Every structure is written in structure tokens, then in C-alpha cells.
């Protein structure tokens, strides 16, 4: 029983980080139709900018966080404006190629400046072990879970209640109609990339806190694909459930079966979902009326 609780907390915390990372991917896909293969690199970049500001430059935590957010938004905006906007109207495959190229570029830039050695970051959260329902759990996992839950809730509220959140969903639904009510589609595109970069930044920081600041963050970012396929590319609640499911699944497989298999299991799920329910478990069904 105690192992089970530990695995649940590990799975949920990792799943929550995954959900955050995947949410950025879904945001971009929903609003602009771009499949962003560089989402993992956004996580990497977020983790490294935060590390640079906080550890290398010794800035206060909150300042480092703000700098991270500013840089994330700038990078997201630049990518949208100078890389993807010129690609409007190009075929899907060209756009995918461009984001793969972007992924290579970003990770190469990080390697160029920081090398490939993993760097330890001072713990953001207490790392002592606490007991939850009889299971031993590191406290930082609980913190990660809490922070991710707060950010996900805030983002969900933003989409449900705020004017700009509704405008983003409107653009995702029908770009021309959005223009007729005076929504600037370009601004929404830029906003989606900015928000995606911010959620990737937070995911990257949380991940770096429970592991390390290292290139492996990219391979964690690759898990975004099983998550979004499971959740259905365009569904925000689906992404959250998908993230948690994949997180729990890998934790259980690694704890009860084999850590090696745990690396593969998300992709086995990916293939199975594609075979059985290609639009994902929570994918929005297209509503069509004439």
C-alpha cells in the first residue's frame, strides 16, 4: 500500500508537469493549427533561462521567474512572427519541418552555451520526506503537484472567463467569424505562442527541480505527444487527464514492472490510441450543422 501511494504521488506530479507542457502544445495547435515539435525545447529553454537568472546571476527567485517569463514570451513571439507567420498557407508537412528545425536550433543553442553536463539547481522546495497515508513521499513532489495544479486551474479559468481567453477559443473555432467581431487573429496567434512558452517555462522549472537542468528535458518533452494523442489534440481538459494518465502509468510500470519498460509504455499507448481512437479519448467532436 505504501509503495502504491508513493507511486501515485510520483505519477501525478510528473503527469501534472506533462499536462502543463502539453497544454502549451494544444494551445498552439488549437489556435493556429501548427503542430509544434519544438515544445520539448521550449521546456529546455525555460529551465535554462531560469537557471541562468537564478543560479548563475544570483537574482532573487521572483525576479528570475519574471525574467524567465519575459524571455519565454519574447521567444514565443519571435518564433510566431518571424518563423511561422511567413509559413501561413504552406502545407502541413512544411510547417512541421520548420518546427523540427526550430527544435534542433534551440537545443543546439542551449548546448552551445551550457554544454551537455547536467547542472544541479538548488532545491526550490523542501526535499524532506513526508508521509502521506502511510507512503513516504518527498515533499517537493507535493509542491510540484500543487504548483502545477494552480497554474492549470488559472489557465482553465482564463479560457472560460476572460475576454482574451474566449477570443482565443473563438479564433480556434472560426477565424473569419472571429475577424467579423473585431478579434485580431494575429494578436491571438502571438498570444498563443506566448502562453505556450510560459506554460513550458513553468513545466521546465518544475521538472528541473525534481530532476536536474539537463538536455534530457527534451526527451521528457517528447512525452507531450502521447499525452496530446490520448487527450485529443484540441481538448484542454483532455490534455490534463491525458498528462495525469501517462504520468501515473509510467510511475506504476516503473515501480511494479520494469523501469526500462516505463520509458516505452507511453509510446505503446500512443500507438494503441491511434489504432483505436485516432481523435483521442477526449477529442472534441466536430459539430457540423448546415
Amino acid at each position: 500500500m505504501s509503495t502504491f501511494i508513493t507511486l501515485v504521488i510520483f505519477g501525478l506530479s510528473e503527469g501534472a508537469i506533462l499536462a502543463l507542457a502539453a497544454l502549451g502544445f494544444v494551445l498552439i495547435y488549437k489556435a493556429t493549427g501548427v503542430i509544434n515539435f519544438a515544445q520539448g525545447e521550449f521546456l529546455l529553454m525555460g529551465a535554462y533561462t531560469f537557471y541562468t537568472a537564478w543560479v548563475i546571476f544570483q537574482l532573487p527567485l521572483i525576479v528570475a521567474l519574471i525574467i524567465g517569463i519575459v524571455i519565454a514570451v519574447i521567444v514565443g513571439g519571435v518564433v510566431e512572427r518571424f518563423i511561422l507567420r511567413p509559413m501561413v498557407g504552406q502545407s502541413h508537412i512544411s510547417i512541421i519541418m520548420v518546427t523540427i528545425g526550430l527544435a534542433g536550433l534551440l537545443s543546439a543553442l542551449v548546448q552551445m552555451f551550457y554544454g551537455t553536463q547536467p547542472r544541479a539547481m538548488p532545491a526550490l522546495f523542501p526535499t524532506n520526506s513526508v508521509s502521506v497515508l502511510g507512503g513516504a513521499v518527498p515533499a517537493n513532489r507535493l509542491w510540484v503537484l500543487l504548483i502545477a495544479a494552480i497554474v492549470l486551474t488559472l489557465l482553465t479559468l482564463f479560457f472560460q472567463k476572460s475576454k482574451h481567453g474566449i477570443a482565443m477559443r473563438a479564433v480556434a473555432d472560426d477565424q473569419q467569424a472571429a475577424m467579423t467581431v473585431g478579434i485580431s487573429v494575429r494578436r491571438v496567434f502571438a498570444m498563443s505562442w506566448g502562453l505556450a512558452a510560459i506554460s513550458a517555462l513553468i513545466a521546465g522549472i518544475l521538472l528541473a527541480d525534481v530532476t536536474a537542468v539537463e538536455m534530457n528535458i527534451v526527451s521528457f518533452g517528447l512525452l507531450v505527444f502521447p499525452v496530446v494523442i490520448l487527450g485529443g489534440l484540441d481538448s484542454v481538459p483532455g490534455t490534463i487527464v491525458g498528462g495525469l494518465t501517462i504520468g501515473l502509468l509510467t510511475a506504476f510500470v516503473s515501480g511494479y514492472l520494469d523501469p526500462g519498460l516505463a520509458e516505452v509504455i507511453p509510446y505503446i499507448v500512443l500507438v494503441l490510441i491511434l489504432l483505436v481512437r485516432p481523435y483521442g479519448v477526449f477529442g472534441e467532436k466536430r459539430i457540423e450543422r448546415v
Partner: protein
Amino acid sequence: MTTDELTAPGARPGPGAGAPDGALLAINNIEVIYDDVILVLRGLSLSVPEGQIVALLGSNGAGKSTTLKAVSGLLPSEQGEVSSGSITFNGQDITRMDAPERVRQGLSLCMEGRHVFPHLTVAENLSAGGYTKNGSISSQLDFVYEFFPKLHDMRTRTAGFLSGGEQQMLAIGRALMAEPKLLMLDEPSLGLAPLLVEEIFATIGRLNAETGLTVLVIEQNAQTALSVAHHGYIMEQGRIMLEDEARALAENPDVKEFYLGIGGDGKKSYRDVKHYKRRKRWL
């Protein structure tokens, strides 16, 4: 058939040319080209006086929708552009203004086929309609709900699952959220049952009568449109062929025959039908 018959109705020189003063919207001799090669509007002029309902009629492909897209600034998203002429709204040249700014200036378009946001609820659709408003939109929301009480009852429903008539009401309500000075409607009757069409047009008439809203409406259903409109234009092949007061248009024998499908001399043989088709082109 004589040549007189062929040229008679459309031969009045330059209908609509030169916007009369006091027009809220004036389109002056515009040309619209899609993809740099397809000329759709060829020197079209029309004006919409403040406080009136103006109907723009014409067959498929005449360029009616393109006209409204030119006015609302949607052409760039379809590789179209106004290549000559100008559009003035409320005394301001808007020919090159971007679409969101036009909405802010008071121009709202209800697109053909309703185009509600299918995954958003009714209330969210309406608040998206108020996107250009800074500050609270609750007074405008109250106004729309008062005008369409049914929308208030359905405010938590997902718009994609509403019926066609309900979606059309929502589309109009959404356009009203921006507090337009001029509401443009592109075929509000599309795909609706005759009774609903009557209802939609009654609503448009009521909006105009009660709030003084200026309306420019495109319609295939000429009879219904002319019954509520003050003024009407008839388009063909990218030009205005005829304009007059709505009542006069509805009485015009040519319009009666070509657009309303009434009048003429009873049943016609197939030969006459061919003749009828040929006569329908005034150009």
C-alpha cells in the same frame, strides 16, 4: 423580341454613383480582384443612408458577398483586394482599414451561413461579440437578451447544437454586441424554413424601427427582403444594375418577373423559358 427590350431596364446611367450627403456608408466605384486575376466587382457604387434598411439583391455569383467583405475588411484573408475606388463610412475613408478597427468604428457583419463559434456557449459567443468594447459589456448583453429572450434561456448551451434559426438569432445578437452603427447581414435566410425567414426579417425591421439601426442586407429571397427594406439595389456581374425605393422595386415589372417569379403572362413553354433566361441578363 426587340433590342429595346434587351437594354431597357438597366440602361439608366450610373445608378448609385456619387454618394448623396448624409449616407452612413458610401461605396464609390470600387473594383475587387481576387488572387490578382479574378475581377469580381467592376465599378460598384452604392450608398446606405443612416437609419434605413437597404437590400442588396442579385443572383448567385453577382458579387453581393464580396461587396460586404470589402466593406468589412475581410478580403485580405481570402487573397482579395479593393484595387480601385473607395469606401467611406461615417465620413471616414475605411478602404484600407483593418477588419478589427472597422468593427470598432461601428461596422458589424453577420456572415453567410451564420458562423457562430460552435464549441462556445451562447453566452460566450455573445461576449466574444463584445470583444472590441472596453469595459463592461453587461448593458449591451441585457439589450441583446431583451431583444432575443430565447437566447437568454439558452445562454449555457453549446452554440453548435442550436437549430439553424437559433444560430441565426445568435449570429445577429453577437453582431449587435459590438454596438454597430451599421449592421450588414449576408443572407440571413439561408437554409431556414419560410416561417423562420419571416421571423428573422421581422426582427430586422423591429431593430431598425426601435433603435434606428442602419441595416444593409443581402438576400436571395427578394420578396421578403423588399418587404422590410426602404431601398433596394439589384446587382449583376459585379455591378449595380438597378436601384430604387424598395416599394417601387417590388412593383417593377422586370424585378417581378426575374427576381420575384411573379407576374408575366401565366404559364410559359420551354421555349419561353430560354427566352426568359436570355432576357434576365441586362448586360
